[in-house]
């Protein structure tokens, strides 16, 4: 993802066209980041919109244009955490004994099922694998594997040390490795299913 720093500069100066340009450049990335995190289109869309509204409101505070990318992911990450807490509270309020493997994410309504039919089976498998991870490991894995952020940037976004980030990623990959073995997901089955 590349864009001229002048767009950020203009956005910082209150140019709404520049802000919309940033939205169009980054919307897909942030949406897919949140979608992988929650495996829920509606929540992902809501969190994405909140992220860009917060970006619009706070971009004047951004001091270094080069730090725009980690700054934007930090906003998205914070909204993901907030949404995660809401989900937990909601589950506790309804005394819902959710499946710790994340199977709760697959309980969807009819519309959601229709949307899912348009997504490839492979994506569904990966969504299901990601949803087995604890949120803090899932988040690091998405940032590193899909968003291509450097360890230093992830550490900065999450306000953690680089070693903590690497450790989380190690456990996330190891857990996914075990899960794929358990489900007998390999290259052949994936290609078959894909």
């Amino acid at each position: 993802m590349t864009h001229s720093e002048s767009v950020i500069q203009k956005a910082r100066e209150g140019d709404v066209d520049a802000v919309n340009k940033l939205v169009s450049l980054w919307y897909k990335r942030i949406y897919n980041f949140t979608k992988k995190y929650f495996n829920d289109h509606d929540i992902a869309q809501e969190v994405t919109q909140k992220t860009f509204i917060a970006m619009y409101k706070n971009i004047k505070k951004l001091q270094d244009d080069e730090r725009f990318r980690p700054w934007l992911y930090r906003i998205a990450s914070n909204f993901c955490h907030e949404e995660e807490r809401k989900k937990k509270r909601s589950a506790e309020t309804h005394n819902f004994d959710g499946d710790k493997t994340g199977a709760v994410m697959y309980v969807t309504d009819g519309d959601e099922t229709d949307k899912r039919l348009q997504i490839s089976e492979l994506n569904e498998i990966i969504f299901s694998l990601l949803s087995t991870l604890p949120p803090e490991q899932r988040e690091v894995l998405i940032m590193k594997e899909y968003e291509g952020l450097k360890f230093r940037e992830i550490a900065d976004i999450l306000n953690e040390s680089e070693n903590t980030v690497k450790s989380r990623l190690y456990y996330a990959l190891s857990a996914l490795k075990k899960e794929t073995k358990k489900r007998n997901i390999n290259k052949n089955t994936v290609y078959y299913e894909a």
Partner: protein
Amino acid sequence: MKRKPEEEKIISYLYGEISEKDRREVEDYLKDNSEARDEIEELKKTRELLNKFEDEEVVGRPNVFSPQHKSFFVSKTFRSIVSIAAAILLLMIVGRVTDLSIKYGESKLTITFGDGNEQITEGFISRAEVDNIINEKISHSQKNLEKHLVGFENRLDSVESGAIGYIDNQISNKVLVSQRQIDSYVAQLDRESKEKIGNYFRKNTLDQEIYMQTILTDFANYMEIQRGQDLEELTLYVNNLDKKTTQNQIETNQLLSSIISTVNYAQGE
């Protein structure tokens, strides 16, 4: 047997974000450890699987922020042009309704309304007449100004003298009043002091009298008690003396009786 590298180093190796030294350490370990090689391979395969994911296209992305383009029809330029046009149009309508006619010719400016029967004509006047009018007005103004100045100076003088008199009067009154007040205050102080001193001496004398009376009474009581005690002691002493005398007398009698009996016994033998 080499020590297994930390998880952080393995991950750094897997993602290629590793220093040369750490990379050699991991590779040396992997060279001698097939189990670790298998683990790395499986982690790589897991990564490959994850990378098969295709990002979803976002359909119907909402336009989050509407650019605030100002329409030409609400811009300042448009408003100015419309205002000027409206003013010109209004003048034209008024002119049309009132049959306004403005003519200039024959050293005259002619403004007419209606059919032109009623004419307002303004003839021109010469430069000398204009100069005269101006000079007259200036001299008139100067006279007025001088008159006002004289009046103002007079008023100022009268106000000044009045003010000075008033201030002197006030000052002298204030001084007199102050002197009288001071005398009265000193006299009052004197009276109060005398009264206080008299009261003090009277009270002091009374206190001393009471004190002396108390002392005398106490001394008389003391002397009375002392006299009683002395009398008791004297009485006791006399009684003791009396007792002793009686006893001595008894003893003497006994002694005498003993002597008499001894003598009688000796005479009998």
